[in-house]
């Protein structure tokens, strides 16, 4: 029984080899394992990339290696394990071949490089900034971040492939498991909550078109940001003077009142009421304006003189690590007679 099964296997093997014998090609009963490594793995259009061969079973240093692009020989030498080239335009495929001759045997490794560019960027969707702030909102620990991928990949005809026709595979800090449900066909955005234990987080997206055999990839680091408090003066007629942040000591002329705004930058919130504000003046709690908890109005009474330390703690009750205290000194003419309301 056992003998007949072995004989059957030998016959099958022989029949499999016959076509190669008839074609005259060398047959290698055990083809050496040669791996190729491309860096970067998914070159952008016109980007220089490097191909490297490695093998644990064959001494490639003794091999005569000939490199070709689309059938045209580019370089050759003994032990030439690396080859550098430049990718073509977006969507234009290049076939890279390495002919490896070792002793009397030779092997060919071929692969195709089709460059595609993918942009990846993010926004901290719940990070606080003043309404007219032109800078980027940055995410604090626990903040919600939305990541976007925009592939700029064209087909062989030079036509741009619609972003919603690609398959997107997202990974977070090298792992796909946490964000697997957000990967898939046409899923070009990823939402995540910034980890409170990890400073910088890396998000990677792999963008593939199965039908066109084009793949692109991009990564981005989302930094950890500390929330900030910046003080501004609020003018009764001109509004908050965002052009000039206050630095102490801030002089308040005798008999005048001033409103100080403590602007929370990069706290997680939808509305100002999502944050808590605790003001202190001269070490004692001070009551902010009822309508703007980040605004404190100070009146310098007649004859007042002295420096008043002012501080505020802003916290996001839902995010334990988002709590900051900032101080500002006020120069009054008599601190004991200052009135806070």
């Amino acid at each position, binding site marked *: 029984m056992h003998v007949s099964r072995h004989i059957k296997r030998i016959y099958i093997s022989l029949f499999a080899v016959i076509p190669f014998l008839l074609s005259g090609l060398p047959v290698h009963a055990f083809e050496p394992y040669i791996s190729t490594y491309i860096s970067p793995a998914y070159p952008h259009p016109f980007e220089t990339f490097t191909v490297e061969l490695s093998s644990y079973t064959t001494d490639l240093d003794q091999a005569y290696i000939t490199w070709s692009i689309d059938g045209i020989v580019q370089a050759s030498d003994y032990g030439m394990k690396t080859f550098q080239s430049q990718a073509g335009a977006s969507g234009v495929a290049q076939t890279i071949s390495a002919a490896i001759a070792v002793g009397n045997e030779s092997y060919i490794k071929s692969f195709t490089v089709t460059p595609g*560019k993918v*942009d990846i*960027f993010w*926004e901290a*969707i719940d990070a*606080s900034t*003043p*309404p*007219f*702030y*032109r*800078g*980027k*909102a*940055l995410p604090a620990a626990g903040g919600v971040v*939305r990541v*976007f991928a*925009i592939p*700029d990949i064209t087909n062989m005809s030079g036509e*741009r492939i*619609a972003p919603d026709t690609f398959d997107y595979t997202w990974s977070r800090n090298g792992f796909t498991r946490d964000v697997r449900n957000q990967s898939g066909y046409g899923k*070009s*955005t990823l939402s995540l909550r910034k980890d409170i234990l990890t400073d910088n987080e890396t998000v990677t997206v792999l963008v593939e078109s199965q039908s066109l055999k084009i793949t692109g990839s991009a990564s*981005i680091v989302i*930094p950890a940001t500390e929330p900030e408090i*910046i003080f*501004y*003066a609020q*003018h009764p*007629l*001109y*509004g908050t*003077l*965002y*052009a*000039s*942040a*206050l*630095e102490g000591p*801030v*002089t308040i002329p005798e008999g005048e009142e*001033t409103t100080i705004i403590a602007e929370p*930058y990069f706290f997680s919130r*939808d*509305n*100002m009421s999502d944050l808590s504000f605790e003001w202190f003046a001269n070490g004692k709690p001070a009551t902010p304006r009822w309508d703007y908890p980040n605004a404190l109005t100070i009146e310098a009474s007649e004859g007042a003189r002295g420096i008043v330390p002012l501080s505020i703690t802003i916290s996001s009750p839902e995010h334990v690590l988002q709590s900051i205290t900032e101080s500002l000194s006020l120069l009054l003419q008599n601190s004991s007679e200052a009135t806070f309301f």
Partner: protein
Amino acid sequence: MKPSLKTTIFLIIGILLAILVIWFAFSFFRNTSQHNTSVPFFNFFAGNNDTIDGGFTQNNTDDNDGEYGTPSDTDEDILPPLLFQVFSEPVSGATIVTLPNTTALNTHKSAENTPQSAVRLIERATGHVFLVPFNTLKSKRITNTTIPGIYDSFWDTTGEYVFTRSAAETTIKGIGMQIVEGDEDPDSIGAITALYGHDNILDTDTNPSRDALYILKEADTGARGMIVSFDGSSYQDVFYSPFSEWLIDWAEDEYVYLTTKASATVPGYLYYTRIGDSTLYPLLSEKNGLATRVNSYGTKVLFSESTRDTLSLSILSNKKETSLPFNTLPEKCVWDETGIELYCAVPFRLQSATYPDDWYKGIISFNDGFWYMNTETGEYMFLASPETYGAQIDAVSPTLSEDGNYLLFINKKDMTPWVLNIAEALGRINY
């Protein structure tokens, strides 16, 4: 002992002289006090020496309601200096308009029958609209409808329609308005009429011909763009993006340019999109702290990027990047209508800071000089130093007059509008 007649006469003369001296001193100190109260409040709080000196032509808005005043109490036209402050109070935006002769009240014989340039502006404290002709530099109040809290404004080319924006807690709301002038009676005051409104605005810009607005608004997830005619008679949804943190630049009538908001250590991207299409086509990518300004043909992009604790300015043209000989933020620059010449407010010194974040937050302020550059020939030229005119300027919102002769901008330090006579600075025209 009874004083002699001679002594009495000397005593009377002495008393009269003393009264005269006291009267002069009182008048002097009263004037000084009035001058000081015109210094904007927030300079005092800035904690630095940003107060504006009076050593240049400065328009006074006091006592000018309803009629033109004259800077030297005469009706003669004046020749404005190279760089001049148009209005001494903070504004919520301004535009240069061309006046017909009848409105300009032109009395300068050599300038008769020639149109006059003027600035139309919104006073920040009141929302009143003023007109300041360059040939008098005296402001005339056009409307007295009080609208406090206007942060900035976008004007159509005629200055008749304006889109104002204000803060609404954590968002921005906008109102389109029409300015209706009074009748020909010099004492007549016009009014400003609200036409339409928009909430949850992310960014706004006008097209090059300034007859329409592009308003980017918050969507359920992301942003949507719409084109609105200045009079509010038509609007059209033209764009949707799941990403919302865009700054828009409607540089060409057919295309809108979108730049991701900038931070020093975050890679920024610039795209363009055809009006009516939401497809984003990349122009610049992965540049930290990227800020941009595109010319009106889409052929050149002025951009800055953050490098260590400073920033660098370059131009992208024909896919080639070229560094410029000076460094500033692109929003402090304006392209001329040829798309070749640039006018920039350039800080004399870029202190070590996190750019552009610290400038946006008001942590740092610039002291600018004004530069010209021809981006084809590489020729560049220093135009003016505000310090020569006794002022320190951190310029924002630069715009050119239609004839290209004047550069209008707002001084971020005190929100007052200024004009640079660039034609004169370049030696191109005479008055």
